[in-house]
């Protein structure tokens, strides 16, 4: 009888332990909601999501690589590279007489293709030439930064089609209380009429891709093989898994996501610059670790990584609203990171 109670108690504790990031996030949000007037509102939640979009994407990118036991330091500057390419292309296409929408779509497609190149090179370096991932992607970071700066020549891209900003800063759904709803398009209403905006386009766009790749990771053979490679690379190759191909694929997925993040950056801020994603790299890695993935590979889920991102994004928005300087955020992210690792060291059962 007693053991049953003890077991139940342990199960409850275990459940909390396994989901401590979620608990932490709720507490964190509660803390800011109590301290800051107006924090617990639809707008703030959407703001957290909106400003966190790039980190969501970079963290998902990083997760795939980290599951295989690697690391991709280049994602931040691949993001920057993608902002430069796509903004330049948009300007060029628009000035050549393409319709704004045509110019934007064409630029996005070209950027996504070009954005696969850094990942392919990283993958080949790591898988075929056995360069340590840290070195391979660190070099790629430099190359991307340099190439982006060369393309920019110190001048940020200007005269982007305004439509880019309209889409990037628009929302998926608009509700005008009492008069109707509208998708994607801001309704024409008189000034002062309240319009409720639901889910920024950038967030929708990011979540669609994240959901697709979460599906790939959990439901397909490719996903299963990535975990196997991270768990025991020899076992994976002896089981007939083409390890090299998978590793190249993973780095390509990583730079694909970094390019997506770059495109979203351009659409949000209507500019492109080489160091657009420089600060996001560490947030992305931190988010993956807070989400419980092991840096040695073999574990981690998209869902938990997103929770990790939200912990950081909530912190950032919360502190900004309280008017605290940003370096407080760096300190806190550092502390949370250490806290995560310590928790997992002491309570290994808490891992999935």
């Amino acid at each position, binding site marked *: 009888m007693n053991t049953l109670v003890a077991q139940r108690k342990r199960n409850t504790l275990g459940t909390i332990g396994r989901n401590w990031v979620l608990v932490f996030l709720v507490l964190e949000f509660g803390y800011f909601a109590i301290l800051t007037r107006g924090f617990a509102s639809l707008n703030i939640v959407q703001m957290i999501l909106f400003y966190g979009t790039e980190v969501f994407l970079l963290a998902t990118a990083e997760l795939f690589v980290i599951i295989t036991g690697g690391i991709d330091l280049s994602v931040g500057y691949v993001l920057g590279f993608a902002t430069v390419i796509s903004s330049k292309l948009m300007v060029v296409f628009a000035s050549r007489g393409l319709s704004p929408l045509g110019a934007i779509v064409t630029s996005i497609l070209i950027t996504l293709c070009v954005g696969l190149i850094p990942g392919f090179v990283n993958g080949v370096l790591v898988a075929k030439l056995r360069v340590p991932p840290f070195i391979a992607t660190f070099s790629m970071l430099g190359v991307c930064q340099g190439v982006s700066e060369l393309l920019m020549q110190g001048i940020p891209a200007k005269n982007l089609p305004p439509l880019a900003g309209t889409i990037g800063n628009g929302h998926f759904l608009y509700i005008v209380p009492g008069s109707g709803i509208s998708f994607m398009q801001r309704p024409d209403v008189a000034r002062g009429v309240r319009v409720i905006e639901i889910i920024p386009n950038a967030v929708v766009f990011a979540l669609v891709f994240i959901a697709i790749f979460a599906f790939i990771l959990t*439901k397909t*053979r490719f996903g*299963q093989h990535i975990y196997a490679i991270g768990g*025991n690379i*020899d*076992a*994976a190759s*002896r089981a*007939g898994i083409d390890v090299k191909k998978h590793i190249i694929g993973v780095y390509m997925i990583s730079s694909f996501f970094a390019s997506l993040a770059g495109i979203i950056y351009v659409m949000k801020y209507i500019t492109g610059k080489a160091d657009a994603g420089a600060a996001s790299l560490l947030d992305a890695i931190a988010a993956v670790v807070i989400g419980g993935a092991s840096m040695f590979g073999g574990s981690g889920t998209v869902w938990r990584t997103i929770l990790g991102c939200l912990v950081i994004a909530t912190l950032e928005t919360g502190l900004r609203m309280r008017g605290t300087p940003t370096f407080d955020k760096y300190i806190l992210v550092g502390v949370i990171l250490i806290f995560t690792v310590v928790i997992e060291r002491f309570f290994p059962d808490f891992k999935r």
Partner: protein
Amino acid sequence: MGYIIETRGITKRFGGLTAVDNVSMGVNAGEVVAILGDNGAGKSTLIKMISGVHKPDEGTILLDGKPMKLESPMDALANGIETIYQDLALAENLNVSSNIFLGREKTKRSLGMFNVLDHEYMQQESRSVLDRLEIEIPSLKNTIRTLSGGQRQAVAISRSIYWQAKVLIMDEPTAALGIAEQKKVLDLVKSLKTQGIGIIIISHQMYDVFEVADRIIVMRRGQNVATRLVSETTPDEIVGLIVGSETVKR
């Protein structure tokens, strides 16, 4: 004799070193053959040729009496030659059924267009192969990390059996196991024998060898120096053959 697997005069050289020198041996279906020898005697190289890791420089390997070329470990697997390495080659972060199906996962159609993993099927099949071998593992959803050494060995064996092994090569199957677990693994080997699988065991544990093997092949300096039926030899004689103090009568 109709060996299920046989080598005829296979030789493997690494540079100037002849690791395996003109070795002929065979295993019958339902027979356990132990390969013994000191470190560097060529045991590992020999089984690596049979499992497709190394290509022999000379000689042939015959499966069911038919000569075949093994280009890669995958070729060997496709032909029903399964190898359990000393490190077991399990992904510790994955669960039991994922490991049994590793690299050969069963998928099903979902929404008419995606091939998704069919976990339910894999769990059922894993359960049935474990039951057949009378292996007790509490939950197939447990990761390998949570299992004991013997249970891991059992999972590795089940994986080979599930994929219809005709020949099972085991490298030091009882090393690093507790006494009780060693016995379980040996029992498992005996039950595999009754299922008509040809088994090659490499081991240093003389007791284990005499417990399960039918025949012993002793290797020294790359050569097959003696073959003995377990029923007609003693551990002392085998030790003598391994170190080379016993005169060899062929």
